[in-house]
């Protein structure tokens, strides 16, 4: 090739690397990258495909009709593109009519095709193809150049991928394993030192110089520091190479952001070189390492000959410098990723919770030290194995949960975080332990779920404590209720004359005691209900319920109590749709609201009515009682809240009824509110959902 041709090719390469250097993210890069390649090669149809899992996915196409809408090409297709991926060699087809081609459009419109692999070191990351309508003979130079372009593009892609991975993965610990995986794969395709070494090597020999060195700007010291690898310097010399940004040729190149060439070295630069014991240098070229708007450092070559470099070298040198910049940048990012990873790993080792990462097939891909301690398994025994076969997931009855119902299947399907104390896991010795489980999905850059992180803790102690608490509650139910019931029974026997005739005064006194005893019974019931609600022990069994008949029954039960106070309870019965609720709990709600209405009404009536819309039924309990002040209304549904004033002093209660009412309604998908005017009365409303089959 002639020198002008080389120069022009290099400039083309430069323009392609610039697309990568200035692109924000991968999706915004595919199109321009392909266009640039097509322009350079002077053809008008082409495509760019990237290897994702087991398929080649089209990222950009020009002049190929609707080809972007066609599905990715699986490895099993055996087409031209896959031939390239597998052989890692370009394929040239001068007569397409004789070949098996994946796309119909291509088959009908084109005659020739060149497909080249996009390689980074020896790994294929995708393929690029160009198409021509006529039979076309490509020269060897053309092919070579196309292959180089493809590799340059691959480098650019990897560089952007790295920056995206870094951006995406910094945020969440849960993505640790994804990060781990990707950075490993990047490490295998990209040996930075070697790549940089080969670039420096070719630069120094190309310009027949003696020393080549990359210096990077250090954010802490604000100095340009020598970095390995270098050409023609000892390791100590590299380490000792330090330059201020306002010193010498290197500082100038860094600050101005342009390449600088000197044929005769100045005093200042000589001083800089002396620090690293570099002597006898006469001429220098230094170019900034620029990525996007950021200058990372300087690449420089030194020669012991005066005027060793020519002005035309300057342009070429800066093109090569831009390539070095990409490598350096990727390397910096890679290091950052590694650091993040190490930090995360340190964190994972230090926390007391077990952490497991699984892939999308529920295979364990990470298992931390705390997990080993809890389960007795060693990471090596679990890695690569199926979660359900080793640790397993068991329900409260200690039976294995079916694979499709397990939280693992759920998190991998919809990605919604799961926190649960309902499962048991298995230790290595076969025993099961109750576990607090927290599951979060791992997503890749495209937000597809690729796995999950399972954080777990052995809650045997909490579990036992909880069981003890439960036993205590049921014990106190029994122990408290029995004597209260017995008192009630005895009092009733006395009142009904079983123990002999009693006089009026005794009867009144006994009735007082009956009232006190009822208060005690209500308190015990309310307290037990609060406890159950707070512990989530109250289960709602929703069924199809006729609300009006429940109201009628409850009203009937409260009629005697109302009559005692000379109050009237009126139910405006009306046909409404069946509701979806738990009848025991609805009864509790009605009891609370109606007994409250009776309690707080001195004269008048209590009216109950119902109304229905498409979705819900509203019930209102209206009294002509003492009413509730605006202030008190705000606090009314709080636990243990009771309105305290002269009028309520005589009325007993626990202040728990409305709190319980509200909680029960919420549990059934309903709500409760009120309207009230002091001295006029209160109306309580509640809603419950209409039953739908």
């Amino acid at each position, binding site marked *: 090739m002639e020198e002008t041709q080389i120069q022009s090719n290099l400039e083309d390469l430069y323009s392609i690397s610039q697309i990568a250097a200035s692109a924000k993210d991968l999706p915004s890069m595919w199109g321009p990258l392909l266009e640039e390649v097509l322009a350079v090669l002077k053809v008008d149809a082409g495509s760019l495909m990237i290897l994702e899992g087991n398929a080649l996915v089209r990222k950009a196409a020009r002049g190929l009709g609707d080809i972007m809408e066609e599905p990715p090409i699986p490895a099993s297709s055996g087409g031209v593109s896959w031939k390239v991926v597998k052989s890692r060699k370009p394929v040239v087809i001068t007569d397409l009519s004789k070949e098996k081609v994946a796309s119909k459009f291509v088959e009908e419109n084109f005659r020739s095709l060149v497909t080249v692999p996009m390689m980074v070191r020896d790994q294929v990351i995708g393929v690029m193809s160009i198409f021509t309508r006529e039979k076309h003979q490509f020269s060897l130079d053309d092919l070579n150049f196309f292959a180089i372009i493809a590799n340059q593009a691959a480098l650019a892609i990897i560089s952007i991928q790295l920056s995206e991975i870094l951006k995406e993965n910094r945020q969440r610990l849960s993505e640790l394993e994804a990060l781990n995986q990707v950075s490993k794969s990047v490490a295998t395709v990209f040996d930075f030192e070697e790549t940089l070494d080969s670039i420096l090597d070719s630069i120094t020999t190309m310009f027949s110089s003696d020393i080549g060195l990359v210096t990077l700007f250090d954010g802490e010291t604000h100095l340009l520091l020598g970095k390995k690898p270098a050409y023609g310097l000892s390791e100590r010399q590299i380490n000792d190479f330090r330059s201020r940004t306002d010193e010498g040729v290197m500082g100038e190149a860094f600050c101005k952001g342009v390449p600088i060439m000197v044929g005769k070295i100045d005093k200042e630069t000589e001083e800089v070189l002396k620090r690293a014991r570099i002597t006898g240098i006469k001429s220098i070229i230094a170019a900034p390492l620029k990525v996007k708007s950021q200058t990372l450092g300087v690449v420089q070559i030194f020669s012991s000959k005066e005027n060793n470099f020519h002005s035309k070298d300057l342009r070429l040198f800066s093109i090569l410098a831009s390539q070095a910049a990409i490598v350096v940048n990727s390397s910096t990012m890679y290091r950052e990723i590694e650091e993040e990873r190490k930090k995360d790993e340190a964190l994972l080792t230090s926390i007391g919770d077990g952490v497991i990462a699984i892939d999308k097939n529920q295979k364990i891909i990470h298992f931390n030290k705390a997990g080993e301690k809890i389960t007795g398994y060693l990471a090596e025994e679990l890695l690569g194995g199926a979660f359900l076969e080793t640790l397993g997931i068991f329900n409260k009855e200690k039976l294995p949960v079916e694979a499709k119902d397990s939280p693992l299947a759920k998190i991998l399907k919809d990605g919604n975080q799961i926190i649960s104390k309902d499962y048991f896991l298995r230790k290595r010795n076969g025993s099961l332990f109750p576990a607090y489980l927290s599951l979060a999905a791992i997503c890749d850059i495209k937000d597809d779920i690729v796995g999950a992180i399972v954080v777990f803790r052995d809650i045997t102690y909490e579990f036992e404590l909880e069981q003890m608490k439960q036993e205590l509650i049921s014990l106190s139910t029994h122990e408290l209720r029995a004597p209260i019931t017995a008192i009630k029974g005895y009092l*009733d026997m006395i009142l009904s004359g079983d123990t002999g005739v009693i006089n009026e005064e005794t009867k009144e006194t006994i009735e007082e005691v009956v009232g006190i005893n009822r208060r005690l019974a209500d308190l015990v019931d309310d307290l037990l209900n609060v406890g159950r609600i707070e512990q989530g022990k109250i289960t709602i069994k929703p069924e199809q319920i006729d609300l009006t008949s429940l109201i009628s029954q409850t009203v009937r039960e409260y009629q005697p109590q109302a009559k005692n106070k000379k109050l009237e309870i009126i139910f405006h019965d009306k046909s409404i749709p069946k509701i979806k609720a738990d009848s025991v709990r609805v009864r509790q709600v009605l009891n609370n609201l109606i007994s409250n209405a009776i309690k707080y009404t001195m004269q008048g009536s209590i009216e109950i009515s119902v109304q229905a819309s498409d979705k819900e039924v509203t019930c209102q309990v209206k009294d002509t009682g003492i009413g509730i002040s605006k202030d008190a209304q705000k606090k009314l549904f709080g636990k243990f809240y009771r309105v305290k004033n002269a009028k309520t002093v005589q009325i007993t209660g626990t202040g728990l009824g409305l709190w319980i009412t509200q909680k029960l309604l919420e549990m059934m998908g309903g709500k409760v509110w009120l309207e009230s005017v002091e001295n006029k009365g209160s109306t309580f409303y509640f809603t419950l959902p209409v039953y739908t089959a």
Partner: protein
Amino acid sequence: MPSKGKILLIEDDATLSRMYEKKFVTDGYEVVTAYDGWDGLKKTTSAKPDLVLLDILMPGLDGLAVFKKMRSQTATFNTPVILLTNIGDENAIYESFKLGAVDYLVKSEVTPALVVEKVESFLAERR
């Protein structure tokens, strides 16, 4: 006065047991008491009661288990049972009626007089 009938009261709480016993004796019944499930079950055959008042939550054998065992032995297959308990649990109620309970009463909701009334009207019907 001749006894109106023999009642077996299976109730683990002594206070309640004494109270119901007093009420039934006052009203003219003969009462046999048992304080746990196994003892109760034994007495269903040895005492040959006309009716069993049966608690559910009890140490050892619980009330529903006693009930099931009664239904599986010929001697007590037809002995009438009224559940007298603290739990208003739907499953327990359903289970009891499936086994042929005469009634299911929640202690805190009924007076001793009502319990006697239920027993009396059932035994009257039987005669």
